[in-house]
């Protein structure tokens, strides 16, 4: 490896400074604040502050709503990841086989990524609105009474579809690039050896695609847990009866709407820890199975 030696000790720090300052101001400082706040009990205006130790965490642990939120988050994150990655892999394979119209399809499929989460949420809210939406009307024609305002499973289905749809473009691009990086000669050789398309996919393509899949797995889980706030806020607001109240939405609601800062901070600390653990697990165990 080639090492660049700076004669000036200050210069490298200076060059790093913008990034370091941003990281400090927007990531480390707020995180430290959240950790500090999670041990405090405070009224909304901050006029009375008491140190309460771990009480905020104990309350969370004893709260059925919080345990429900953990469960909802798990179901939600897994469903979004599986659905969006599965669909985009299918789409990428389909586009990869095309000869002439690849570019057109790629452009069309990447479009949804440019839609802001809140706007996407409103779109889905309109499409699935039980009173004025087109989908409940069509589903009503085939005898299904869609109502995500009352039915927990309908609500979960809605937020999963809306969130997964948003992520398909991103996954699709990476899968397509991954597929195109696999030398055609490998698949051709397997074909000459008599392997069918299914066998070729599982023995050649999928293993060679595993670095991309692994990367997308991490990105998608993080997306589902953090970036779906806008979709939830615009469609179900965590309802009905907390059926779609994922952890990040609960942090927002308890802190900003409910003004319970201690509990909200404790929840974000738990969330931080959870992401840390998930990332470590992914890199230590899953990555070993990935062939680069």
């Amino acid at each position, binding site marked *: 490896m080639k090492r660049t030696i700076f004669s000036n000790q200050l210069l490298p720090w200076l060059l790093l400074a913008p990034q370091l300052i941003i990281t400090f101001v927007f990531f480390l400082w707020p995180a430290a604040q959240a950790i500090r706040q999670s041990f405090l*009990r*405070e*009224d909304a205006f901050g006029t009375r502050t008491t140190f309460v130790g771990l009480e905020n965490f104990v309350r969370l642990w004893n709260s059925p709503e919080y345990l429900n939120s953990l469960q909802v988050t798990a179901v939600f994150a897994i469903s979004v990841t599986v659905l969006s990655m599965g669909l985009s892999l299918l789409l990428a394979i389909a586009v990869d086989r095309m000869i002439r119209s690849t570019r057109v399809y790629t452009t069309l499929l990447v479009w949804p990524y440019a839609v802001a989460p809140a706007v996407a949420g409103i779109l889905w809210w309109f499409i699935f609105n039980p*009173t004025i939406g087109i989908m409940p009307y069509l589903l009503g024609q085939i005898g299904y009474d869609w109502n995500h*305002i*009352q039915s927990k499973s309908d609500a979960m289905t809605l937020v999963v579809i809306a969130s997964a749809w948003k992520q398909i473009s991103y996954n699709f691009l990476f899968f397509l690039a991954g597929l195109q990086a696999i030398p055609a000669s490998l698949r051709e050789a397997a074909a000459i050896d008599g392997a069918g398309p299914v066998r070729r996919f599982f023995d050649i393509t999928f293993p060679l695609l595993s670095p991309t899949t692994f990367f997308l797995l991490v990105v998608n889980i993080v997306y589902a847990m953090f970036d779906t706030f806008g979709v939830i806020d615009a469609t179900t607001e965590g309802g009905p*009866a907390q059926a779609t109240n994922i952890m990040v939405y609960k942090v927002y*609601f308890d802190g900003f709407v409910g003004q319970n800062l201690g*509990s909200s901070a404790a929840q974000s600390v738990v969330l931080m820890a959870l992401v840390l653990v998930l990332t470590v697990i992914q890199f230590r165990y899953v990555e070993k199975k990935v062939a680069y």
Partner: protein
Amino acid sequence: MIRYSTASVVALVASLGAAQAETNIDWWHAMGGELGAKLEEIAQGFNDSQDEYRVTPSYKGTYPETMTAAIAAFRANQQPAIVQVFEVGTGTMMAADGAIVPVHQLMADHGQDFDAAAFLPSVVGYYTDGDGNMLSMPFNSSTPILYYNKTVFEAAGLDPETPPTTWAELEQFSNQIKESGAASCGFTTQWISWIQTENLSAWHNQPIGTLENGFGGLDARLSMNGPVQVKHWENLKRWSDEGIFKYGGPVGADNAAPMFYSQECAMMMGSSASRAGVIANSSAYELGYGMLPYYDDVEGAPQNSIIGGASLWVLSGKSDEEYAAAAAFFDYLTQPEVQADWASFTGYLPITQAAYDAMESFHAENPGADTGIRQITLNEPTENSKGLRFGSYVQIRGVIDEEFEQLLSGSKDAQGALDAVVARGDDLLEQFQAQNQ
């Protein structure tokens, strides 16, 4: 930091320059659209009426957003002098005694002529402490009333001029409407929490919580799982199953009004301040107004309904001149002409008796416009019907919605759902008490 000091130097120079500089105060509010434009007109009216003070309104988003913004600003020492806070934030504001300046004190300190008795008790009662002192200035207050579709009533063979007065009649009318095919649903409602729980309780003189619905102190707890509330929730569940009632969603129920406008539901219980909007969307049929229905076997019903909406709070940490400006503005705001103009334009309730009297001709020309005010003044408010005051109440309203949804989905019965409201709400109240003591 540099920018702040430059700005303050500029401000200082500017204020020295002008011999008689106006005192400028900020007013943060949550009124968008037409209401916001009307609000700016009021501020403009005040600014034009004198040259000592100037009020600058700024729109800060929804009610929760405005309140959150004001709290965050207070913590950063950048708070506005006046902020509009919705009624369920009252408990939080009131408990923050170091952060607010009570209105009665503000008016007394700045020599504004202020007579608490001039206000309508059922409006200001919500914002008054145990000793009868007014803590915030009511600004936009409304109360739920019944809207109904006269055209559908007629098609169903009902008298279009007679809205149901009791819940038994409402059920009977709804069944007749549904069976005749005039509409596919009898009624819907906005706000399960505000209308079908809190107002239902006040209307039947039932307590929502202990210690005079929380007016008595921070150790008050909820008690809205009484027999009347349980019976009503049970009925709503049954009516929902029978299809004569349709649930419009949590909080303010976004889907309720569209169901009424599209004539899917023949009746809707909603805020009196929605009147202008309902009229604008009801050109296809005749619109009627009524008071909320009641159970005639409950003694003392109907009592009086309670208000919702928002009031104006004065935050601490400002200068004397700024408070003088706020006091002068509040005095302007309570003038009968200003009140009557605001109330007749928006459908909100006037807050003083004089303003109510000034609206006589408006009420005569606009049938239904006085339904709300007649309803809140129907009887002298009791300790069960003057309002409610609990901390963390935004979250408690969320709990009410959630448990109602549990009831609708069949996973709990009415007693179980309301017991859960009380248990979960009390847990929040306990935390709130600990935070504020």
